[in-house]
């Protein structure tokens, strides 16, 4: 099972195209307000992570996700690492 850092690394990979000039991608990066993801792009991010980790990520977690850290933490909670 992946751990927090593996989730984090993958999220960074998927989000790279959104890290526009001058924006440093880090755990505190906010998906919507800072990186400018639309609701559709957030959904696509979730789908990509589901496929990469072969896991189910219910949309129900989204209201509690603001930052990259929140997302990595939520994934670890859904699918705890060893």
């Amino acid at each position, binding site marked *: 099972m992946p751990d927090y850092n593996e989730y984090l690394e993958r999220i960074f990979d998927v989000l790279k195209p959104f890290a526009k000039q001058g924006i440093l991608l880090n755990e505190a990066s906010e998906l919507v307000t800072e990186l400018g993801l*639309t609701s559709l792009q957030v959904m696509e991010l979730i789908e990509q992570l589901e496929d990469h980790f072969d896991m*189910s990520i*219910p*949309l129900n977690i989204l209201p509690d996700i603001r930052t990259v850290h929140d997302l990595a933490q939520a994934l670890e909670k859904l699918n705890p690492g060893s």
Partner: protein
Amino acid sequence: MSLFDKFQPIADIQAELQALGVMPFGAVTEKLLSSTEAIVNGHQVILAGTNNYLGLTFEPECLEAAKKAIDELGTGTTGSRMANGTFAEHVALENELAEFFDRKHSIVFSTGYAATMGMGSTLAGPGDVIVLDADSHASIYDGVRLGGADVIRFRHNDPADLDKRLRRLGDRIDNTLIIVEGIYSMMGDQAPLAEIAEVKRKYGGLLLVDEAHSLGMLGEHGRGVAEAAGVEDDVDFVVGTFSKSLGAIGGYCVSNHDQLNAIRFAIRSYIFTASPSPSVVASTRAALRLMQERPYLRDQLWANAHRLYDGLKNLGLQVSPEVSPVVAVTIKDRNQAIDWWNRLLQHGAYVNLVMPPASPTDDSLLRCSVSAAHSEAQIDRIIDAFSTVQNTTAVD
């Protein structure tokens, strides 16, 4: 910060449209000239965005039935189906729907939204799972969010993606509801229901299909995509609306599961709202009968759909992926979409302007819906309006 801050983006768009003198959302229909022509925002237009697929809104038998119901039963039921709002006519409509769909049970709701939202929020709750097509209608998303089940999306119209997501559920499949639509409301594309049913057979779960935009259009009897695909036995629940093909308002769910009669009294959008008015039920019953008596309306509808689709495609416009009574033209630039919508209206065609997040992508749409009642000449006038707008650049 105030409660109102979150509405500012909407207010900004409203102000932008007002500055342009355009009113695409809440356009006012000032006078209806027929089921296919009206005066909208001061312009006489062909109605090409009203979902009036069979053109039954002014059908004399429907009008008479509605008038008679008003005279005999009054203007409203003043109560919920669970209390005083179940009239003999509601029960008769439920029986007629069950018979039409060849299902054992049926529920009539006050709106299509209440039907879809109600079933989605009630069938699966906390601890259960809902796997839905990514492009599902807002009423489906609203319902499943309210119900509290774990909600997982699969890629639009992609049975292989559904397969993958159902496989991941393991034993949870026993508590899983799959939700798809027959014809998708924005792009008009059909669900690959035979393949989706095959995936359901492989893993299990229950399948709910929203046939809101396919009732009366597909299948030998007009029951929709499930009938056309020959997989009605795999579909556990069919939901839909009376507000499109049947020209009224209201919704339904039909099923062969005997539990539907118990589920009925757990659906809050059924219990806590007034039942449909007698006149609405009466015109719906008449329209349901006419839809079955006049299968040629389906042929007219599809002939018109082909004519409009081909005409717009021949103009070089980016039309929806397949021919359907819903023909959507993709316009990437939002301002261009607003400008085109406005000029289409000026040139005699009313269509729907759809902007994100209502559109399935980040593009905007000029969404047309075709009616069996459109004449070939009217379809050609819609195409001409697009052609004129395409070949001119400034607001007239």
